[in-house]
């Protein structure tokens, strides 16, 4: 980390890329070795975490499928891969993910701009609200979406438009779920870009478009690519949305893997499908790494509070209102449907279902869990998972800050893999791999936050990395030259600049953990269910009251999520003086 002596800035950039001037070679070598050792030390925790809680369980379940009676059955791979049904599923999985990602970017990028650059009343609240879909169980959100897009839905009544069981319903629902990913990842960086650079380009005669294209877009590219990658991985492994809105005719690899593992117990087929999923995800990660490699550069980062202002002129107002209209229609309306259903009781509007939640818990079946208890469980698991994700992801991001070599790029990709892995593979993998001392965790509560952290870590890495890499390295060098230790450099240079990214990352990790269902359902103890698990229990039964209670719990989940995110934003605002 420590570079000796004052060097020309340009050569410094090069030094970061691996070339060093002969004159400083001796010292730099010592520093280089130390830097490598430091990087390895930083990587140790994330590597151990992923080896034990991801690679090992997933390898165990895949091996169980492909190794029968002590012999490898690789023949199965050929059979499954050449099955036309598999190819259909693979094709649908890929194209809907690409289409969903493109649509999400198209819809959400203007939103990212508006949230980053404009000041308007209720902005903080709205930013929390657009993140709410992200945590909702897909069963619940899917049902709300049907109320918007389906037969007799809002669009049907207004314009006679129906999208249920069409691919459009799936794509729009993916936008609904992932809007926040783009707004938060891209907007987080956008808010910190110095607008004076674009203004300078304008002054020098560039048109508004070409100033944006040549100055802002290249600076944003890494964040856009990171957001696109995450949206792609999320939609690539889409499960509930496909089942509810696509009907039984559409299946993604994730759905197929769930069927083979949890229902048919055809582990060989499931193992091959998992490998196919890995291969596809690896290809996407490679593509991502290749596009971003030369794009990330040091940027001038400024306090986001200074870049946002009230919109000026009709064009900006139109943009603001356009974004607000999209948010209202696509995100707020389905959420409002849920709230409405939770209040619309048998005797008109009221809090019947909420009261029922409270009294049912006293009446004493093991089926019922007091809502406050479920909220408590969810918050506790999510808090622990966020700590895990921040520690693991933060260390990983710190290790990855410098231009990476091939090994480190592989490490970067490894961290993203859990997003592209089926929850059922992880859940079942935990079960068969973590079953012997010292790792017999099958009955332990800590499995839940561990599984949730696996999904949180990629978010932490992807939100922090573009910002960390954008920090001008000369700042670190200057601090080092002035005698600061690497720890102190990190604390006083990196941390203040990435403070916002840490808050965004923590918010994501927290929201992801709150909403995680796929793996949690296999490992959560029934006497300590999380909110999504409790909601699914209620939904699995007939009866107006149980349905209403599911809606009431969903509303509580939404409030918990929005509340926690607002609280996190508050922490960030309090510390913005450090910028």
């Amino acid at each position, binding site marked *: 980390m420590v570079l000796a002596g004052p060097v020309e800035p340009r050569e410094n950039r090069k030094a970061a890329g691996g070339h060093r001037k002969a004159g400083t070679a001796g010292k730099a070598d010592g520093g280089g070795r130390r830097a490598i050792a430091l990087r390895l030390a930083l990587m140790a925790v994330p590597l151990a975490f992923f080896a034990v809680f991801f690679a090992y369980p997933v390898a165990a379940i895949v091996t169980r499928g492909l190794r029968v009676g002590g012999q490898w059955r690789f023949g199965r791979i050929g059979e499954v891969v050449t099955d036309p049904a598999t190819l259909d599923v693979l094709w649908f999985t890929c194209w809907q993910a690409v289409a969903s990602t493109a649509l999400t970017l198209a819809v959400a990028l203007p939103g990212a701009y508006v949230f980053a650059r404009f000041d308007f009343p209720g902005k903080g609240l709205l930013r929390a609200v657009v993140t709410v879909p992200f945590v909702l169980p897909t069963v619940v959100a899917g049902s709300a979406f049907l*109320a918007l897009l389906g037969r007799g839905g809002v669009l049907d009544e207004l314009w006679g438009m129906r999208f249920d069981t069409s691919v459009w319903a799936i794509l729009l629902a993916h936008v609904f779920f992932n809007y926040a990913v783009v707004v938060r990842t891209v907007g987080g960086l956008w808010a910190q870009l110095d607008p004076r650079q674009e203004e300078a380009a304008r002054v020098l005669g560039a048109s508004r478009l070409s100033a944006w294209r040549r100055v802002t877009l290249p600076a944003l590219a890494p964040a856009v690519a990171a957001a696109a990658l995450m949206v792609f991985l999320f939609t690539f492994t889409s499960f509930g949305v496909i089942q509810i809105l696509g009907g039984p005719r559409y299946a993604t690899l994730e759905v197929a893997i769930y069927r083979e593992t949890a229902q048919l117990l055809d582990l060989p087929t499931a193992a091959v499908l998992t490998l196919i999923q890995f291969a596809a995800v690896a290809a996407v990660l490679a593509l991502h790494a290749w596009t971003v490699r030369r794009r990330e550069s040091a940027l001038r980062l400024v306090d986001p509070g200074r870049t946002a202002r009230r919109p000026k002129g009709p064009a900006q107002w139109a943009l603001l209102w356009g974004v607000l209209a999209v948010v209202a229609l696509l995100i707020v309306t389905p959420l409002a449907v849920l709230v409405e259903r939770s209040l619309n009781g*048998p005797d008109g509007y009221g809090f019947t279902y909420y009261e029922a939640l409270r009294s049912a818990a006293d009446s004493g*079946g093991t089926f019922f869990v007091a809502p406050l208890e479920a909220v408590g469980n969810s918050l506790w698991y999510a808090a622990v998972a966020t700590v895990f994700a921040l*520690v693991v992801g933060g260390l990983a991001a710190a290790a990855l800050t410098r231009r990476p070599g091939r090994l480190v790029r592989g490490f970067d990709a490894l961290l993203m893999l859990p997003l592209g892995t089926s929850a059922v593979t992880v859940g079942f993998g935990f079960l068969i791999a973590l079953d012997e001392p010292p790792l017999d965790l*099958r009955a332990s509560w800590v499995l839940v936050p561990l599984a949730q952290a696996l999904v949180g870590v990629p978010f932490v890495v992807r939100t922090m990395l573009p910002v960390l890499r954008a920090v001008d390295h000369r700042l670190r060098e200057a601090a080092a030259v002035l005698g600061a230790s690497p720890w102190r450099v990190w604390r006083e240079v990196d941390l203040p600049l990435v403070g916002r990214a840490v808050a965004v990352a923590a918010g994501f990790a927290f929201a992801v953990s709150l909403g995680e269902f796929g793996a949690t359902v*296999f490992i959560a103890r029934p006497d300590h269910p999380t909110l999504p698990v409790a909601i699914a229990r209620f939904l*699995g039964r007939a*009866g107006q009251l149980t349905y209403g209670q599911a809606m009431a719990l969903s509303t509580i989940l939404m409030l918990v999520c929005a509340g926690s995110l607002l609280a996190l934003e508050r922490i960030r605002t309090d510390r913005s003086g450090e910028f």
Partner: protein
Amino acid sequence: MNSQLRRVISAAVLGSLALSALVGCGEDTKSGSDSKTVTLVTHDSFAASKAVLKEFTKETGYKVRVQAGGDAGAAVNQAILSKGHPQGDVFFGVDNTLLSRTLDNDLFSPYTAKGLDKVPAALQLDRAEHRVTPVDFGDICVNYDRKYFADKKLTPPRTLDDLTKPAYKNLLVTENAATSSPGLGFLLATAAKYGDDGWQGYWKKLRANGVEVVDGWEQAYYDRFSGSAGGGKGDRPLVVSYASSPPAEVADAKTKPGQAPTGVATGTCFRQVEFAGLLNGAGNTKGGKALLDFLLSKRFQEDVPLNMYVNPVREDAKLPELFSRYGVRIADSATLAPQKIAKNREPWVKTWSSLVL
């Protein structure tokens, strides 16, 4: 510089220690192996009154710890995967459609629970070896929306044949047999009625009559069915659900209506029997046997209907008023031998998918 490096490394080590300490904490809270606890491995719709479980603890000294893992199919598969190294002592929740899979995998140790003599022989599907004990049964049946048929002055369908009549065109919604257990049950009902080579023809007719297929029970019942009070505004008055859904519809009503808003087409049913068994390799065999006895005890059996909306297997267990008043006893529910289901399940579901989807 070395001291700083050391500091970073020690911070990393401290971090991982903190992680493992947390993990360790988790282990402390687990109490699976001590002999005063008996662990019941089950699916996530298992439910019992806390008072009843407390009674078991009072009588036997054992505390019940419940370990659930996903829906019935996932829970069974997890139990099979952890065979010989089970997560608990007793497994509850394998039904007749999955029974063969657990027996073929040698999951259970034989045990004849007390009170089995009170269970009808037809429900004892492993009568020769007693590896599993029947605990409850239910029927998967077509439900209808009473109001719809009264308004249209139309007689609701009663049998499978009725469903293919033009009068009921575009009225039925069912679930995907590949992903949903009522969906599979309905397919099996038709296979039992029309035979191995006849059910395909029936489904062709059903398809021509406009049957709609959705992926899960929740969507079918709450989003598409018009008779459910909860959920969206569905427009299909016929749905594949359970014989116990009508009692469930009125369970929470403050003023009890004369009849449930939904009814059951009694000639369309498939019987589902749920079993429990002592897991091979259980840590607490004695406690497990006591728990199996308890599951068949009158006290537990009478607690079953209102907790899980299924029927007790004991003939002398009294049904709660909700069931005797709003439920129906299905006399001629279809059944198939578990071995036959195990053998045909996959090819049938494949054929069904190609016919209907």
